[in-house]
């Protein structure tokens, strides 16, 4: 398995992941949970941190071109900043902009609440189809494949390392 063919000069967005399985030359990692606030000391109580073991297991990903790693080891993985932006725009912006645009168009043309709602759902469906096409193109170019950056020093605080 080869790594993505992307420019090394582009700045990387980094994140910490843990090695959970080794299958031949493929290393499987699990991302460490992040909270959308991450500024509060009571994260464990409010439920914002994590999302459950199942949710994390669903996010396991292979890491091509990684050096010899052991299970349980924490590593920093990176993806070009532009790739992360393109990924989030594809997943979120395209469907929602088309949905709202369709709703506004329908309302401007005299449609009521029901017509507007139908137009919005239609716009959302079209947006999701377009998102799927763009995502497969990004994936084909290797833009959605993270790369190994470095090992996290043992005992290190990942949040400070990044």
């Amino acid at each position: 398995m080869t790594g993505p063919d992307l420019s090394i000069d582009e700045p990387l967005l980094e994140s910490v992941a843990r090695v959970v399985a080794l299958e031949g030359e493929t290393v499987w990692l699990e991302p460490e949970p992040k909270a959308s606030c991450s500024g509060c000391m009571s994260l464990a109580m409010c439920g914002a941190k994590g999302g459950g073991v199942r949710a994390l297991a669903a996010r396991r990903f292979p890491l091509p071109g990684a050096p010899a790693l052991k299970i349980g080891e924490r590593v920093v993985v990176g993806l070009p900043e532009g790739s992360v932006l393109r990924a989030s725009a594809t997943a979120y912006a395209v469907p929602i902009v088309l949905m709202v645009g369709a709703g506004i168009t329908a309302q401007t043309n005299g449609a009521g609440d029901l017509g507007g709602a139908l137009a919005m759902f239609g716009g959302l469906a079209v947006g999701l189809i377009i998102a799927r096409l763009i995502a497969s193109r990004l994936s084909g170019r290797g833009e959605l494949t993270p790369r190994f950056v470095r090992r996290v020093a043992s005992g290190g605080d990942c949040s400070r390392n990044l």
Partner: protein
Amino acid sequence: MKDVILLMVSATLVNNVVLARFLGLCSFMGVTTKVDTAIGMGMATTFVITVSSMGDWALETFLLAPFDLGYLRTVTFILVIAAAVQFTEMVIRKVSPALFRTLGIYLPLITTNCAVLGVALLLVEGRYGFVDSTVFAFASAFGYSLVMVVFAGLRERLALADVPAIMAGPPIGFITAGLLALAFMGFSGISAN
């Protein structure tokens, strides 16, 4: 069309959820260390706010208001928001598993905060129709994202500035946020006339 534009400007700038209503401050301070993360987070939150506002509107119009169940509003809206977050994750996973995994590595798992609930409750006050309520929610979320990105840019510059040790980190961040809120107060003079 003019009404829609006014509604969007009002929700985005004049009544900005972060700087005028002071909602979503936890993510405003927590996720704004890098511009790219702030943009991604803003887009994810925009999606969740817009989708959940549609469910909230339907429940408010067809269940809570007709049966006088206003006392269940907050609990109901929290349920709708939780469902919208799960729905968003499920849809992205179905649309593209690779996209889902990539976003899971670099963006927070749970994209909800008090701003999401705040916007839903503001919709009830506004008494909008379906499309208008969705547009209001989208514009409010866009305002949230805009402020997140602006603030992340400022913080990236602050990280390079020679800030006194006692003011470094959150203190200078809060002062900057205060100045940004003052700047946004300038929009409060804008009206339909």
